[in-house]
């Protein structure tokens, strides 16, 4: 393989372009500092930039070695199928393992992977999983019912619950039953029509009964070669992968980058072929490089402000509504995300078929906010907003909010703490703080954060009527009827909830112009579900 850096030197045109790029400010100087940057100077999201969207990029060839720069990573990296926590872990999981099913990158349907079907019996309390024929683990062994039962038990293990336990904790572990080699019956503690989506998450991967994380085996498009925590992991193409013609590349190397600047520099310098999570502030710099492409995808990822509905001043619904009216959402998107996002309406799960998009878009209304605060006897309110640099743009959003709140006579003191404090003893107990969430369908998100038993109920939202609606919806198999119930639940949240959801942020992939196969996705994961099986070198 020739060294791309040398080609640069030999090509005067490229050199000149590079120099011009450098002079026009194509530089990456540290991360952060997005406040006030690039006011209106952007695409307002959507695909493209630096060229045409990737789908028009031409035919992909088979072969080649793909090097991916992943966000973060460190000594506590894991390659365990059921313990992904950081971006690098998640990327490895998507490519090495597979779950029964998963939402497609465009979030339109639940695509069956290891499973052939996941169907409810008479009521959505009991489910039958039928496995696809011909799906094999990397060691050649076909996937059987025993493997599914083993995997679910490993996730649910009460002594050592894995990441997925929060999503399918209601599965009756003792009642898992093998019907035949390719069929499993799963019984739930309560009826839940949303079960296929809950189990169809990347962290609920199917692994063989003799699974050993030290020599990990899965059914994914790439098989394990090596793994060094905090540095990199290597994979090779799994030749017997069930999807015809995939993956395109022969080998895959995932490299850790704890620092955003270093990751971008590695791409600019040709040391990696593709990176995920390009910070919006660096978008222009990468775009102006003729050898690189960027793809900005709209997602359902949200980074809300969390108001505790059981604590003053937010125990008064008028204060909560006033705070939601304070936000100038468009300004937030421009200033915090450099335009790489779109405004939201204090509701999550925009890609759920039942999303209540008919509720009027909330706009900034300072007069109304003031009047609500006055009614609540909270004029001249002063509150502390706890923030931490735990996700791109969160701290900046807090600062912009404090600025906007002044317009309603509210004094917001931004208290920036480090992540250790944020996730310390007060975690999930802060009166007014922030958080970040991935794209989910509505009921899965509710299970994560809006029920009394949810592991992350940060707004302490425990409304009996809401709980009742959710139980009804879970038991309802008829989609139309379920959507009606969920609409009512969302209306409650819209009128009384503790979240301020100001925007859905975009996710930006940046990659070498030699690559193709990138398609705009909604799932909120880089490269559409991290699926590097779809990426290849242009023929």
């Amino acid at each position, binding site marked *: 393989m020739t060294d791309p850096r040398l080609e640069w030197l030999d090509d005067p045109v490229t050199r000149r372009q590079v120099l011009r790029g450098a002079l026009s400010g194509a*530089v990456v100087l540290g991360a952060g500092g997005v406040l006030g940057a690039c006011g209106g100077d952007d695409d307002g999201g959507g695909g493209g930039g630096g060229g045409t969207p990737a789908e028009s990029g031409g035919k992909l060839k088979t072969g080649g070695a793909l090097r991916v720069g992943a966000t973060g990573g460190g000594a506590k990296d894991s390659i365990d199928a059921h313990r992904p926590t950081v971006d690098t872990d998640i990327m490895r999981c998507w490519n090495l393992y597979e779950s029964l099913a998963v939402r497609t990158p465009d979030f339109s349907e639940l695509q069956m992977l290891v499973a052939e079907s996941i169907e409810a019996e008479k009521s959505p309390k009991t489910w039958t999983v039928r496995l696809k024929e011909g799906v094999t683990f990397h060691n050649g062994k076909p996937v059987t019912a025993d493997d599914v039962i083993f995997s679910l038990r490993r996730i649910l293990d009460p002594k050592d619950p894995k*990441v997925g336990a929060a999503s399918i904790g209601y599965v009756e572990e003792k009642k898992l039953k093998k019907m035949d080699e390719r069929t499993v019956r799963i019984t739930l503690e309560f009826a839940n029509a949303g079960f296929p989506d809950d189990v169809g998450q990347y962290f609920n991967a199917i692994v063989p009964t003799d699974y050993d994380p030290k020599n990990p085996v899965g059914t994914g498009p790439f098989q394990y070669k090596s793994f060094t925590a905090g540095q990199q992991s290597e994979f090779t193409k799994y030749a017997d992968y069930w999807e015809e013609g995939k993956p395109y590349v022969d080998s895959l190397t995932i490299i850790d980058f*704890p620092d955003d600047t270093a990751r971008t520099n590695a791409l600019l310098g040709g040391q990696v072929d593709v990176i995920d999570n390009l910070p919006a502030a660096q978008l222009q710099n990468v775009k102006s490089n003729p050898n690189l492409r960027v793809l900005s995808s709209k997602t359902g990822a949200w980074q809300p402000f969390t108001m505790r509905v059981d604590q003053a001043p937010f125990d008064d619904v008028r204060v909560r509504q006033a705070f939601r009216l304070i936000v100038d959402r468009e300004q937030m998107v421009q200033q915090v995300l450099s335009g790489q996002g779109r405004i939201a309406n204090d509701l999550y799960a925009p890609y759920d078929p039942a999303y209540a998009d008919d509720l009027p878009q909330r706009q900034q209304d300072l007069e109304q906010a003031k009047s609500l605060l006055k009614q609540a006897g909270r004029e001249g309110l002063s509150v502390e907003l706890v923030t931490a640099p735990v996700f791109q743009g969160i701290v900046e959003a807090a600062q912009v909010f404090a600025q906007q709140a002044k317009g309603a006579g509210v004094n917001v003191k931004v208290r920036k703490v480090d992540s250790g404090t944020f996730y310390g003893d007060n975690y999930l107990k802060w009166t007014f703080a922030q958080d970040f969430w991935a794209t989910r369908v509505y009921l899965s998100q509710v299970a994560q954060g809006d029920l009394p038993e949810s592991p992350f109920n940060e707004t302490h939202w425990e409304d009996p009527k809401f709980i009742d609606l959710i139980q009804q919806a879970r038991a309802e198999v008829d989609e139309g009827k379920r959507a009606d119930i969920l609409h009512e639940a969302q209306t409650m949240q819209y009128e009384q909830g503790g979240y301020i959801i100001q925007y859905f942020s975009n996710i930006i992939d940046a990659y070498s112009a030699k690559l193709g196969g990138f398609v705009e996705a909604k799932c909120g994961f880089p490269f559409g579900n991290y699926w590097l099986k779809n990426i290849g070198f242009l023929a």
Partner: protein
Amino acid sequence: MSKLIWRRLALGVLTLWLISLIVFAAVLALPGDAATAILGKEATPDRVAALRDQLNLNDSVVSQYLQWIGGVVTGSFGESAATQQPVSELLSERVGNSLFLVLIASLVAIPLSIALGVWLAMKRDRPADHIGSTVSLVLAALPEFVIGIGLVLLFATSVFQWFPAVSLLAPGERAWEAPKYVVLPAATLVLAVTPYISRIMRGSMIEVLESEYVTMARLKGLSERTVIWRHAVPNAIVPAIQVAALQLAWMAGGVVVVEFVFSYPGIGPALVEGVANHDMPVVQTVVMLAAAVYVLMNLVADLATILVTPKLRTAAR
């Protein structure tokens, strides 16, 4: 002489012990603890409780410290809280990489800055001297990460693509097997320390060049080269040795920032991550290593000063 060395070594051990107390207290003073830092967003109360138990974070502070120092005395640096791997295993390759980086940087920086200092002294008050002084002041004033980013822009990403922007050593690959990854980090360190050494060398050289014995040597008709290198430099070099040693000692810590800029797999990223994870054994070990280098370099500087100064050399017997 040997008595002096032993006394200084004993003092050094005492210093290291005091530093271990301070670092321990500092890590404890960080808000949160290893359990919440490691779990992050997943820090639900039951998972935190389970991890605290596993990491012995519920033991008293004194017993945690005694456990750690007991290990050090018996030659074990403990296990990393984040990975449950022995710290020695986690750091051994990284220490090698960092030492190699510092070594290369010093091998370039010290001769270069001494030669530069001598040359500037000879060109005193001429344009070259003014330019040299200004540039070295600017470099000295710039934080080393700014120098590092500047070098990346110039030589790796935006202008030329001569060297890798990020030091991506493959796992198990050592720095000396892939020298291209060492160039820019080492150059950053060189640019960071050269101004100090060359300025002190220039200053003391000017002083020596004005002394009577140099005038005498010149009157004697010795060649300028002999005057400078045989008579002036050996006398002017003493302050430079002290400063060079201090700069080398500084590098043991400064390397942390430079390594982070280049994602160079040395002790730097390990320390940054250790602090983020409140990973006491890792932080302690890295800081102790840097401190030990500091103490040793100071000792070496003093010994070198004694050896090149006849008066001290004879007195120390």
